[in-house]
């Protein structure tokens, strides 16, 4: 059976006054039905753009999809006519965003908004839709949903608004849910509630989930497979367990090192990545991580590394995978911070 989603060499650029922002540079991956993919990376590395481009939700201009394919159920979304896209968006693929307030209409009550999505997408009558809305809101954990449907978005807390977004997203039983940092602006305890909710809905409805975040903990909690992005490239990809246990790319190693482990006490300095995130306007010819990489060599400056297999289903885009592993084995404390200066 072919996978649910196959992204091949997707390339997206933004043509701005200041120059061309190459936000996504030929990424490829696939996702099976019911599977969970986590995408991590620093702010601006192209996580959102890569997913929004699949649904053609980036502003064009300045954005443009420069090439590649996005096969969903065997259909190429990139070549699909704009008019046909609505059957996919909000139907087979649903999206939830970081800021639910921005996606909710402040002057329409919650019930009407969810019901509207249902009538539009499923052709229910208004009464049926309202009934279904209450069911859905109850399912996503909004207490006394019958009464709360009359409330307006500002009367809901951040976590509850995110639940409403989830209710809307699952209303037409999507095959794929894209969650773009839906918990970033929420408190830890509420974040845990939302993660739990999505996980249980996923089991119940059998949908696939792409979860975008910069919190490695969230990824560890829910993703089976992980793509690590840097400057518009996937620089490491693999099963979550492998990546967390045996990271291969120096960036991933540094990223994991920057999060204090539960058993590490403060006496030990954190491993960290030197330097600053890359300037997307001026992409290097070679490896984009080169300026911050403690293991870099001559070759890294000149040629861009492709993903090479480093394990079962596990790839890393680095010229010096072997050397890095050797150094790691020699002394874990120095990993990733060889050129470190706090």
């Amino acid at each position, binding site marked *: 059976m072919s996978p649910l989603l196959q992204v091949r060499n997707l390339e997206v650029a933004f043509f701005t006054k*200041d120059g061309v922002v190459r936000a996504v540079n030929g990424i490829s991956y696939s996702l099976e039905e019911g599977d969970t993919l986590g995408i991590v990376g620093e*702010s*601006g590395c192209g996580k959102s753009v890569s997913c929004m481009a699949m649904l053609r939700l980036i502003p064009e201009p300045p954005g443009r999809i420069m090439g590649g394919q996005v096969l969903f159920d065997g259909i190429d979304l990139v070549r699909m006519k704009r008019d046909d896209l609505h059957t996919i968006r909000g139907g087979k693929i649903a999206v939830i965003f970081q800021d639910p307030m921005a996606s909710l209409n402040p002057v329409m009550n919650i019930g009407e908004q969810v019901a509207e999505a249902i009538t539009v997408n499923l052709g229910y009558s208004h009464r049926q839709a309202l009934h279904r809305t209450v069911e859905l809101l109850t399912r996503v954990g909004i207490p006394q949903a019958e009464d709360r449907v009359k409330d307006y978005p500002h009367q809901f807390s951040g976590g509850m608004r995110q639940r409403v977004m989830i209710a809307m997203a699952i209303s037409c039983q999507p095959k794929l849910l894209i969650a773009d940092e839906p918990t970033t602006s929420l408190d830890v305890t509420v974040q845990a509630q939302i993660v739990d909710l999505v996980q249980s809905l996923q089991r119940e409805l059998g949908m696939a989930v792409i979860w975008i975040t910069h919190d490695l903990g969230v990824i560890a909690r829910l993703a089976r497979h992980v793509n690590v992005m840097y400057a518009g490239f996937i620089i490491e990809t693999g099963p979550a367990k492998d990546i967390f246990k045996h990271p291969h790319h120096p960036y991933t190693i540094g990223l994991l090192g920057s999060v204090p482990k539960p058993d590490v006490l403060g006496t030990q300095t954190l491993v960290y990545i030197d330097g*600053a*995130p*890359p*300037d*997307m*306007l*001026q992409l290097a010819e070679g490896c984009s991580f080169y300026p911050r990489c403690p293991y870099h060599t001559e070759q890294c400056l000149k040629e861009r590394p492709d993903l090479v297999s480093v394990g079962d289903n596990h790839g890393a885009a680095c010229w010096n995978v072997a050397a890095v592993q050797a150094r790691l084995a020699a002394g874990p404390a120095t990993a990733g911070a060889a050129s470190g200066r706090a």
Partner: protein
Amino acid sequence: MTRAKSQRNAPETRYASNWVAAWRRFRRSGLAMFGLVYFIIILFVAVMAPVISPYPYDRVDYGITLQLPTWQHLLGTDYLGRDMLTRLMWGARPMLLVGILTGAVGMVIGVPLGILAGYLGGAFDWFIQRLVDLFSALPWYLLVLYLVMVLSPSVWNLILALSVSSWVGSCRLVRGLTFSAREYDFVEAARALGIPTRQILARHVLPQIAPLLLWGFATSIPGSVFAEAGLSFLGIGIRPPIPSWGQMLGQAGQYWMYYWHVFLFPSLCIVISVLAFQGLADGLRQAIDVNVNV
């Protein structure tokens, strides 16, 4: 994105580019550009009036009263046979003087009061607020009329009288701006660092709100221009023989039905000036817009 951009450190240019960007936004509005060009021209005319005006402004010639435009008198003559063009050129002087100085005096009074009220809050703020309320509730036209009559009409007294109410606007604007500037993290940081209040206001708050003050200043000009014209029209503004547009309009009163030029040209001057200054203010607002949001 800002983060990505700020990586490329090009020292002076980044700061300069703020001005370039502001200028670009300003230029986008046609009315603003018109206002700017008009301002430059009218300033030149006002300053150079003695040199470039074709006749002395007070040369009376009963032989040529109320002439329509001719080659000798491009915009015709008034009821005393004085050259209209000359008088309009001289009329730019009180217009600018009143327009600008009224705003300036208003600022001199309103800015310190507004800043202190906004920053200190509490009883002082309450007092200033009530004062502002009082002055904005007063029928200011009457107040000005009364003041000018008591003080005897002259440009300076007119400016003084108009300033009595113009400070209210700048005070209110500055108070509001300062009130929100007080919440800026860097102002709080300065407080935490023990910087004296005076220095916080001068170095942190004022520079932050200065661009908006410039805008506030520009928006106050059209009102003053109108006020000057109105009061001079009523004969209690600029005293003859010094010409002013409003005064010229007032003198056109009995003749305008038959001699359109004595009415039309001063009116045009007033209307165009008001429009131009409004355009200028609008352009300034657009230009500074982004800079203000830290």
